[in-house]
């Protein structure tokens, strides 16, 4: 992204030229990374950007092609959430993040594939078919922001937006060998993000490098009065000079290297941590005993909120309606039965059950209490360290034919990413190595609330001394 901006400035590359090339590659590619490509809109905006650059009024993002996950609303461009029920939905409004990108001159090149309503870790529950991993097209790019991750890794866009409810930016970033940031809850507006779980969802940037990720984050962050959960405070620009890592304390929790972690992943992540040590960071062993309950807490809270957030898809005001036998309840039942895929239904069922009479206290309330304990545990840990490091996911990208049919084992893939969502903390996934089969491995860094500067700074320092982010599929 910064590289493209540099080329624009030296006039060795023009936006229309780049966009034209990307559109051709997207068209001929087989990654299924995009659901909708806005060819006309992208070319139009590229022309505008070109003019602005010629007049010298451009900024870093002018003419930069960005892909947007298809659960983020774009005015006049279909926003499907990879669901049959929204297959024809065209928003009349832009999400705040999209508006901010457009205001900076970025080009929205298209809408990327995802797990239906962002519910999944493989981008296989999309009604438009699975997205594929550019490192090996027989494998999953991860999910749910798998289309965004694949598009960035394959160089089909300079950067992308994803959304992360339980790891949906970080895990596909790790599977595709790119950098992805889940910002602090409340630092990026959710206005226009189709809600999965409102108290956990956060939009974030995905790019090849930590610097590009920082540039994109700077463009979308900041208070938005249209989102009540957006935090009003100062949001200073991220310094793009890599910081001195000397004396930075990095906590490494035992629990992040527990059973279920692939030894290859463990090895790469341990090496990544040693790299920080080599840069002068102090490694501090810590313990976060409550995070082992994270998956259980998450799948109660997230599905409870989802069951309610997805009630609006009833075929009345928008979306694909199925009338059934003609009575109103039948229309609801048919519309939702035919419009939602199996995973979405499973989560609606689970969430409805967890909130239903007689079960609320045992599930939703209990989970909300344990969530407090997890937050407190992080807070305590951050008195002893500046960052927490560990793996992003327990495994590398696996084959689309190796899909587990047991939903619980898929849920457990999120075990390392979920805690940051529960505690609202910012977290970053960085490429830190490759498996024996040549698949990327991701390392996760977690920082205290609103310390994206520390997080991205560490990422820049790491990437200034390693080359994993430069290897292309």
């Amino acid at each position: 992204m910064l590289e493209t901006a540099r080329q624009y400035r030296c006039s060795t590359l023009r936006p229309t030229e780049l966009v034209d090339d990307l559109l051709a590659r997207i068209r001929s590619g087989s990654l299924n990374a995009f659901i909708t490509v806005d060819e006309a809109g992208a070319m139009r905006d590229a022309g505008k950007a070109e003019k602005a650059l010629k007049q010298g009024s451009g900024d870093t993002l002018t003419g930069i092609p960005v892909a947007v996950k298809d659960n983020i609303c774009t005015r006049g461009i279909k926003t499907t959430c990879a669901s049959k029920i929204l297959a024809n939905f065209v928003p009349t409004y832009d999400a705040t993040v999209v508006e901010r990108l457009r205001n900076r001159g970025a080009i929205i090149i298209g809408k990327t594939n995802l797990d239906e309503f962002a519910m999944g870790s493989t981008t296989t529950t999309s009604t438009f078919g699975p997205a594929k991993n550019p490192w090996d097209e027989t494998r999953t790019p991860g999910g749910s922001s798998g289309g965004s991750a694949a598009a960035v890794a394959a160089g089909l866009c300079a950067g992308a937006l994803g959304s992360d409810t339980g790891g949906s930016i970080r895990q596909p970033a790790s599977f595709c060998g790119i950098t992805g940031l889940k910002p602090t809850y409340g630092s990026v507006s959710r206005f226009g993000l189709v809600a999965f779980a409102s108290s956990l969802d956060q939009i974030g940037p995905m790019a090849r490098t930590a610097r590009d990720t920082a540039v994109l984050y700077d463009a979308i962050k900041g208070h938005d009065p249209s989102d009540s959960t957006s935090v009003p405070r100062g949001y200073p620009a991220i310094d793009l000079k890599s910081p001195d890592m000397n004396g930075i304390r990095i906590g490494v929790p035992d629990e992040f290297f527990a059973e279920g972690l692939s030894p290859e992943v463990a090895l790469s992540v341990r090496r990544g941590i040693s790299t920080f040590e080599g840069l002068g960071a102090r490694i501090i062993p810590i313990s976060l005993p409550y995070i082992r309950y994270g998956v259980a807490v998450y799948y109660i809270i997230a599905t409870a909120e989802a069951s309610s957030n997805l009630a609006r898809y009833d075929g009345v005001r928008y979306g694909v309606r199925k009338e059934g036998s003609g009575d109103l309840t039948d229309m609801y039942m048919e519309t939702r039965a035919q419009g939602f895929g199996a995973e979405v239904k499973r989560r609606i069922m689970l969430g409805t059950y967890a909130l239903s009479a007689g079960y609320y206290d045992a599930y939703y309330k209990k989970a909300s209490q344990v969530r407090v304990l997890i937050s407190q545990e992080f807070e305590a840990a951050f008195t002893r360290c500046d960052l927490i490091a560990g793996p992003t996911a327990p495994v590398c990208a696996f084959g689309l034919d190796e899909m587990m049919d047991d939903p619980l084992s898929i849920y457990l893939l999120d075990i390392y990413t979920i805690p940051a969502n529960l505690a609202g903390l910012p977290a970053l996934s960085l490429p830190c190595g490759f498996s024996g089969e040549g698949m990327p491995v991701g390392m996760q860094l977690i920082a205290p609330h609103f310390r994206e500067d520390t997080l991205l700074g560490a990422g820049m320092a790491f990437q200034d001394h390693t080359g994993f982010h430069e290897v292309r599929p």
Partner: protein
Amino acid sequence: MREYDIVIGLEVHAQLLTSTKIFCGCSTKAGLPPNTNTCPVCMGMPGILPVLNRKVVAYGIKLGLATHCSITRRNIFARKNYFYPDLPKGYQITQYENPLGEHGFLEIEVGHSSKRIGITRIHMEEDAGKNIHDEHEPLSYVDFNRAGVPLLEIVSEPDITSTEEAVAYLKELRQVLMYLDICDGNMEEGSFRCDANISVKPAGSEQFGIRTELKNMNSFKNVQKALEFEINRHIGIVKSGGRVEQDTMLWNAAENRTYSMRSKEESHDYRYFPEPDLLPLEVDDAWIEEVRSLLPELPSARRRRFQLQYGIPEYDADVLTQSKPLADYFEKCTHLLDSPKEISNWIMTSVLRVLNEKGIDISALTVTPEMLTDMLSLIKKGTISISMAKDVFSEMAGTGRSSAEIVKSRGLEQVSDEVDLRDKVRDIIENNPAETEKYRAGKTQLLGFFVGQLMKATRGKANPKIANKIIKEMLDS
């Protein structure tokens, strides 16, 4: 002794007079073409988020204080989940645990005794849209203009033991809402809606009966009739050894009876949980005190004060405090002219008659307090008679002209000049010798005849008091 105790609890939904809806910037204006008063927020489009209107909270605090509620410091909003076409998001944003106001009461007067009706809770929530049913086809039409209009839900304790008390409570609550200027109180248009929970039990029994919920009563008269019908239905069932079934009943005003809604009902499970799109709302002392300082005098207090300060009867005080603008009108008049009872009489008769005939509010009346009191001064001075004043008032209400102008242009001044009147009476006596004879012989009932003649001669402008006095004097001499 009554055989059965009646237990009634009332649930009122009051639409608030804010400019905008509770969670978006759409106006609250009613009567617009369908779906033109909407935005993505109140239509429940994907990806949109609610932001709370501060005024809704202020209005809630206002009502809470006016009804002696304790104001909850830490409020959270909740989602009430159910499917209905007029409910855009598939859930209503409302309050569940920790409503804004709790443990209050309202004092009502029934048959010269007053009673406190407990208020369990007052909470904020959003209104739904409207479904209209096609009369010919199996279709319904949905209009979301009303979706998101702010409501206060006011739930009473089951302290109400008769239909009279129920109506008195509703009237009092409506009056308080209108005094606070936070609801227009219009029942027909649904800005003041009421549901009732009813049960009966053998007199004195500790055990509550099975209750039914009663909906769709859009006037006080309907409330009274519906409650009576439902109570009798309950008593009928219990008397015949039956068992009332828990149910929701719909009042049908055309047929004067209630109908069970069970066909549509299923076991409700609203799956309330905290609204994750909104953050907690903390109401601090400063805000409460700010609202308290702006509270107007409430109807019950004003009623009492009117009786004490102006020495007017309870009945007058009741009528005059029906609405705040009317009571204000009365008080303005009393500041201009120190005759409270006369002012009250004029307001209760002439003023209210004109308002009724024209179907207008006191604010639209062309007769200002100054105009009314000026006219009353003319009566006092004897310039016009009371019966003339009634005509003058009607003309003031019709044309907006002042009483002085009207009296002058119509030549209505009373003739109080005794010399002139004596001349006229002398003529009358001369012209009516027979009657004069009879009167002087003791048939004093004929006085009326002479007064009538004098009125005829002065075209009604003779000051009646003076006329009587002069005629008597001259006939007796």
